[in-house]
């Protein structure tokens, strides 16, 4: 039957070359015997439509051929949990290392908002490269373990050696995470928040509260803080007022027990604004000379050094604050997801 020949030819194309003749010969013998039976039962040859229906029932050639192949995985089920664990670790640590690297590079070379933006835009490329590299390594491990199981056993096969006593101790957070905050704790937070605000408001008139003996030195030195610190200062004051207000409302409403991740994350996000304002100060002049006309020649180089140091510190601080915020938001999202998943069960 011509249709059967065409079918077998199509199957053959998808079989491994070293076994294709043998498999097709066997398949032909089986299918021809089946065809003979069908025709004997009907007392006539199959019509074109019946033959087509019969072969259709056996399945598409590519799928029939695929059944003769060993099950193939890029990364198999035995290795996949390890792969997933390593991938998450790699993506996390590469992001941390990259962010710090970019922050330092921007600070040392040409500090600008464009350079920071370029650094952020390159994040997807860095993450994709990391994921691709990890995937490639695990695909090679899977390939070697499948082809040469004796010489290259799967690393997970050795995990039979593990014992429960080697497991890490239970995280403190996991044990105490569900414990609600006490009233005394919430009141203490509000009191200390209020004291911190008072202290902050006293700093402009009494700088020794912030700098200690350094305030006296600053007064006698040729340097002084640039006016750009004023809006940043008031922003920080505003944040403290907001946080204190939130705590007071929590106390009044009796809702101090609940988790406060949303509040914490909002304050952290708003806290990034003064840092960004600081980074975008024109000419990076955070500290200026009290008498520039007189002192520029003598203290100009020292002033540059001080401002560069502030910029480097602020860049690293900003990168760490962003990372912490991303981490906290991720944790909050994960908790919400877990709670929803648990509620749906």
């Amino acid at each position, binding site marked *: 039957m011509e249709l059967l020949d065409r079918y077998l030819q199509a199957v053959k194309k998808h079989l491994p070359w070293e076994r294709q003749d043998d*498999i097709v*010969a*066997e*398949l032909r*013998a*089986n*299918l*021809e*015997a*089946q065809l003979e*039976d069908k025709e004997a039962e009907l007392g006539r040859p199959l019509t074109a439509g019946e033959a087509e229906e019969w072969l259709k029932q*056996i*399945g598409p050639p590519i*799928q*029939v051929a695929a*059944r*003769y192949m060993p099950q193939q995985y890029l990364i198999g089920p035995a290795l996949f949990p390890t792969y997933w664990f390593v991938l998450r670790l790699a993506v996390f640590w590469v992001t941390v290392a990259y962010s710090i690297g970019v922050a330092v590079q921007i600070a040392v070379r040409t500090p600008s908002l464009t350079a920071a933006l370029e650094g952020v835009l390159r994040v997807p490329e860095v993450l994709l490269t990391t994921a691709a590299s990890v995937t490639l390594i695990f695909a090679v491990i899977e390939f070697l373990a499948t082809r040469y199981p004796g010489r290259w056993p799967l690393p997970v096969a050795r995990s039979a050696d593990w014992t429960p006593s080697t497991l890490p101790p239970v995280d403190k957070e996991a044990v105490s995470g569900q414990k609600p905050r006490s009233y005394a704790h919430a009141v203490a937070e509000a009191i200390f928040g209020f004291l911190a605000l008072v202290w902050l408001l006293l700093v402009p008139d009494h700088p020794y509260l912030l700098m200690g003996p350094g305030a006296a030195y600053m007064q006698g030195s040729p340097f002084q803080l640039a006016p750009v610190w004023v809006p940043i200062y008031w922003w920080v004051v505003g944040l403290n007022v907001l946080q204190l207000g939130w705590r007071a409302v929590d106390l009044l409403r009796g809702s101090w027990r609940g988790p406060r991740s949303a509040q914490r994350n909002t304050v952290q996000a708003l806290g990034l604004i003064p840092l960004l304002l600081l980074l975008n100060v024109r000419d990076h002049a955070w500290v200026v000379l009290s008498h520039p006309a007189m002192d520029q020649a003598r203290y100009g180089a020292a002033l540059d050094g001080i401002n560069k140091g502030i910029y480097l510190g602020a860049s690293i601080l900003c990168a760490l604050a962003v990372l912490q915020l991303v981490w906290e938001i991720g944790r909050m999202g994960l908790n919400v997801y877990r709670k929803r998943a648990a509620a749906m069960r």
Partner: protein
Amino acid sequence: MTLTENLFENLRLELRRGCLTLAVLAQLRQEHYGYTLRKALAKRGLEIDESTLYPLLRRLEAQGLLTSEWREEDKRNKRFYRLSSDGQAIFAQLFEEWQAINAAIHLTIDNIQ
């Protein structure tokens, strides 16, 4: 296919997979080639697709549980399979395991009813 039908189909295939191997090994205590084996199993109520059975025979042979030889029958070359000595030993163990599982499931169901 609805979600429930799809789920049932997946579970049914999973359940059948091991049983088919056992049935094929049981039937091949007697020599067969692919098509007659399929007919013999169908006659006992176990329908298996061609695209499942024929590759399964190859896999079992590669695992050393079956032996095969090409022979002419009815003017056509056919590949005949039968259980190897390793296959016989494995089949005996699998059959015992299957009987134990079967008995345990029956006991569980009877207990609940």
